[in-house]
Every structure is written in C-alpha cells, then in structure tokens.
C-alpha cells in the first residue's frame, strides 16, 4: 500500500460514512453531529474513532454496528471502530449544516453557554416552527438524553430542544 492508495481508501471510507446517521435523530449524520472524531488509514488498515454524546448513550453500540455495516457494504474489510472519551463531546462540535438540519427537522439547536448554572431555564430558545422566542421549558430531560422538552407560547406547539452540553 502506498500513501496514495491510503488517501484514496480514506476518501471511500468518508463517503461510506456519509450514510451513517444517529438512530435517534436520523437527519443528522455522525459527521454532522461531531461524534465521528477521526478516520485514519495506514497500510490499508482503517481506524475509525467515535465519541459518545453522553456516557450512557444507548445509541453508541448501534452507531458502531452501523459503521461496520456501511464499511462492509462499501467493500472495505480491514477496519477497527473504537470509542474515545477525551476530548469530551460538546454541542459546539455540531456542524453548521447539522444545526440547520436540526431546525428543519423541528428540533431547536443548542444555545451556547446555556448548559449549566442558571436555574429554572433562563436561556432563550426560538421555536423551530414559527421562530417566536416566547417559549418555555416543560422538562429538562426529553425523549432522549440529548434533548429537553419545550413549548412555544405563540403557536402553542411543543418541541424538542437539543440540550447544550
């Protein structure tokens, strides 16, 4: 294997991983979400590194399986998927494309700096349906570890907010 063939293989891997999405937010690829940390190819061996959003994220096992399936389907055989904890994932790693996809999907993207400290949800979150900022938090923990449940006081729709972290 030459460095050129390794680089070519890496492009194929990245292309195959474009199809791997978060099972709980299927509009986001693992690259959008920032949990795909690294893809290295050396002498034809592929190392894919992912990091969990939350320690107990039940989707991690499934994501690792999906990565294996996607690579195998692309005809790539010699690979390892490993998980790393550090540096810890933060919502800042969510790509701009990912934030736009979330909004279009009806989930309010995270507001930076709203993760800790302030009691009783003083952060301002815009409704993904109508854009109103007259919203209120219904529950700190939503349908999955990464989301909180909010409601819009203008259009009355409840919505998920991707928790800042």
């Amino acid at each position, binding site marked *: 294997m030459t460095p050129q063939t390794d680089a070519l293989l890496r492009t194929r891997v990245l292309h195959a991983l474009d199809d791997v999405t978060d099972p709980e937010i299927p509009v986001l690829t693992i690259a959008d979400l920032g949990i795909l940390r690294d893809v290295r190819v050396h002498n034809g061996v592929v190392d894919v590194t992912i990091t*969990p959003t*939350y*320690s*107990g*994220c*039940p989707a991690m096992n499934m994501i690792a399986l999906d990565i294996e399936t996607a690579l195998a389907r692309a005809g790539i055989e010699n690979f390892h998927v490993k998980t*790393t*904890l*550090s*540096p*810890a*994932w*933060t919502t800042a790693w969510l790509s701009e494309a990912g934030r736009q996809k979330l909004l279009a999907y009806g989930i309010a993207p995270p507001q930076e700096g709203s*993760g*800790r*400290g*302030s*009691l*009783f949800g003083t952060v301002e979150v815009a409704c993904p349906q109508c854009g109103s900022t007259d919203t209120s938090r*219904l*529950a*700190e*923990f*939503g*349908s999955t*570890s990464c989301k909180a*449940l909010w409601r819009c006081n203008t259009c009355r729709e409840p919505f998920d907010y991707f*928790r800042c*972290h």
Partner: protein
Amino acid sequence: MVTNTISVSETPQVLYALRRADDALILGHRLSECCGHAPTLEEDMALANIGLDLIGQARALYALAALREPSLEDGRANTEDTYAYLRDVGQYRNLLLCELPNGDFGRIIMRQFLYSAFIDPYWRAMMKSSDAQLAAIAEKAEKETAYHLRYTSEWVIRLGDGTPKSHDRMQAALEFLWSYTGEMFDTDEAEAMLQAEGMIIDASAIHDGWRTTVQTILDRATLTLPQSAWMQKGGRSGRHSEHLGFLLAEMQQLPRSEPGAVW
C-alpha cells in the same frame, strides 16, 4: 444459586475506580427502579436519563478498573460485567447514601441533589488528574453531573418552598439522608497514595464548596440544614446496610443463575 463470585485484586488504583464505579452503578440502579413510578411522565424520563448517565459513567470506570487490575492466578481477567454481576455485598465499595431505598419522590430528589452537589465539583477537579484516562472520564462525567445538579436544585426549591406538605416531606428527607453525607468526603491510605501521585484529588477538599452549594439551595427552598454532626460510614470498606443485598439480588439474578448468558 450458582456460586460464581469473583475475586478482585484491590490495588489502590483498582479500589479507587471500583468505589467511584459502584457509587454510579448503585445510584443509577436505584433511579432505574423509578422507571414507570415517577409522579409525571417528564420526571419519569428525567430520572431514567440521570440513571442512564450514571450507569454509563460506571461502565467507563469498571473498564478502567479491569485495565489496571493485575490478572488473576488462573489467568482470567475481570471485566465490566464481572465487577457488576459477580461480586457479593461485602465486595461492593459504594457510599451508603447511594444504596438507600428510594422512598418518596422528595427523598429521591434530595438524595440526588446531595450527591450531585458533591460529585459535580469533584469530577471538575479531577479533570486535572495526572492520569489521562481518569481525566477523560472526569471531563465526560462532569458535563452530565452539572445537569443533574441543576435539575435537582430546581426541584429541591420547588418542593421545599411549595405547599406545607411538600415542605415537610423535603425536610424529613433531608433529616433522613443527612448522616449519610459525611462518607463522600472520606479518604484513606489507599487514596492518599494516589493523591500523592497527583492521580486523584482529596475528596475532603470539596467539602466547603459542597456545604455552600447545599446551604444556598436550602435557603431558597426554605429548608433547614440539620445540626447533627454524627455521620454513618462503612460502604467504602464493604460494610453495607441490608438494603444493598436486596438490590444486588435483583440486579444479579440473571447472570448468576444463567452463567455466561449473552444478548
């Protein structure tokens, strides 16, 4: 029942990882018992999510213990699963606070608040550990425990400063739990060795900040800090309440009776 209990070589590093892992697993398991029983659906999901975070943290710490434990005489090595499922009560190293039965929603919230107010600054300080793996676990865990602290602080205030009934229940929960909080700040010779190497921080250094956090929230909740200074201890050395045995019996039943069972 099949007697397939493991033995553990408790070097200071292994003991340390097991203590922190056991706290997270046992408290996480207690929270999992609330699933389907919380007062509202939202709080049901919140408690389940906090439990999930804790069990995730426990897994990372058990994996670290397995990595650091010298292999056994017969060449076998312990794993996340053997630590969780194949140790007996006396081999568990968790805080007594974490194994106490749930009681009402107020007590569940108060227990989680008292623990989160300790463990969040604890993990934040541990991010500077000289041990890269412990620092990584701390960095991950701290983001989660910050949420747990915020969530439980809000509920302590809401219920403490709520109706006379909710206020009295929260004060009763506080009185019940108080004597179990001292154990969080204990250190011993094994931990002192790791402290000297900069691997871990001195838990007692967290005490004053914890006390300030607790006092601030209790003031807003119109609750009174108990005056009793006597503290119950024993979990760190394997001396547990009778409650842990029942918890383990439920948690370990399947792997104990069906050794080697997999999904």
